């Protein structure tokens, strides 16, 4: 159950970071800041991958953690 709580927090944090990259990338493109655009393009997919992972972990563990305790 504690693991589930941790994963929930992690997912929320990762979702926040993902939105941050989104905002940075949009602004970087508008400001024609190539370095920042490349950085965001590099890093945002990693955050999205982390998001998918936390989501998958929650999906996998939720029933066991909730029903068996």
């Amino acid at each position, binding site marked *: 159950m504690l693991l589930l709580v941790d994963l929930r927090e992690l997912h929320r944090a990762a979702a926040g970071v993902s939105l941050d990259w989104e905002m940075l990338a949009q602004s970087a493109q508008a400001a024609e800041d190539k370095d920042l655009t490349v950085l965001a393009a590099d890093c945002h997919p990693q955050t999205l*991958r*982390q998001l*998918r*992972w936390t*989501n*998958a*972990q929650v*999906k*996998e563990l939720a*029933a*066991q*953690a909730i029903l*068996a*305790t």
Partner: protein
Amino acid sequence: MIGRPGCGLLQMNGQPSAENTRECGADGDLPGFRNWANDQHVQELAEVWNVDPAHIPHHGPPTHLMQILRYAEQGSIRFLYVSGTNPAVSLPELRRIRSLLSQERLFLVVQDIFLTETAQLADVVLPAATWGEKTGTFTNADRTVHLSEKAVDPPGEARPDLDIFLDYARRLDLRDRDGGPLVPWSDPGGAFEGWKACSRDGPCDYFGLSYEALRGGSGIQWPCTDQKPAGTERLYVDGAFRSAPEDCESYGKDLVTGAPVEPTEYRALNPDGKAVIKAAEYLPAHETPAADYPFHLITGRTIFHFHTRTRNGRAPQLQQAAPDVWVEVSETDALECGWSEGDRLRITTPRGEVEARLRVTGVRRGVLFRPFHYGTGGGLGGTITGLQKSEDDLALALHQLSDRHASDHEIHSPPATSQDGPRSTCAGWPKRATPTDCTSIPSRPIRGRCPPS
């Protein structure tokens, strides 16, 4: 290229007939390569079994073994039924595995043909029959189905696995949605008919097979249907794969995290049912050699033994050919560390240690190899502890037993105090108390250079 003579893919694996378990759902997947994330597949299976689809657990990916054991460790699983496998020897981190299998709150049932190391930890042991003592089919990794007929009665109280499982199902009083028995058959022939119906029209179609057709020849390759009664020699002819979104057995996983690919994602990725080739960037192993642990430790097989030696360890010729665990070191490393053939080494990783006789072989420099067959107990000797880090290869759900993650395992050279500096030195090893099984060659202090880490 694939699907033409000379261009087939054939896996070489340790358990060719484990193909059966992959097909029929014994790995935790749904039978007949049905996709747990595809509601249509679940619906089909529910019709075959005559149960409510909600009764078939498909809310998430199959729970792999290490996850099951973690649940048992944490107490949310209190009943474990182990059949024909020996986790008390085969798994990583054996101290942990044995301690969780020994828990008072866990009711452990073990069904096997011998009193294995795992069976010795069980609350209930169900003696099972081996091949030759029961009738059934085996399917090899090349899809060839063989009939194996009973030749002799099993000894003592041993019974065929099928009989034990059927007895268990009856006692659980498993029912279908009309109140009939969920498992309606009662012998191998009936089970085979049930499996034919379950696999019909799927990738591994057994529908055209029968015990009669399998008798006498040397097996038939699935898919075998009314149109193809002699089976199918070659798959993927003309580049046809069963990978269309509505047909595929799995939507796949993220290679890095192991997270399942969502159905919509897969549809977008592969609408036309092509073969999917995935790539992932290089990621270093979680642990790499360092000053304290300067070697990679990899594990593998020896030709004389199979897995945990439950059977072959009882064959005197094989047992004598490779009676005890050893560790292989390259010539260069052996020279630099001052080790010679036959020395007894103590190998330590952050998770355990093992003593093994040294063999100088052609293994790569900086790498140590040890066979994974040797467990403690069972009268089979050996002093090994499970050394692997039980971190799952998430995309493959294989625990790290092969050189895929070799760098997770290191030899320890404590404490690094030599004048050569900690990075490059094997310091003196404290002499250990000599155990009874290696009195002839006591361990010795080791001096010399280790490979650069």
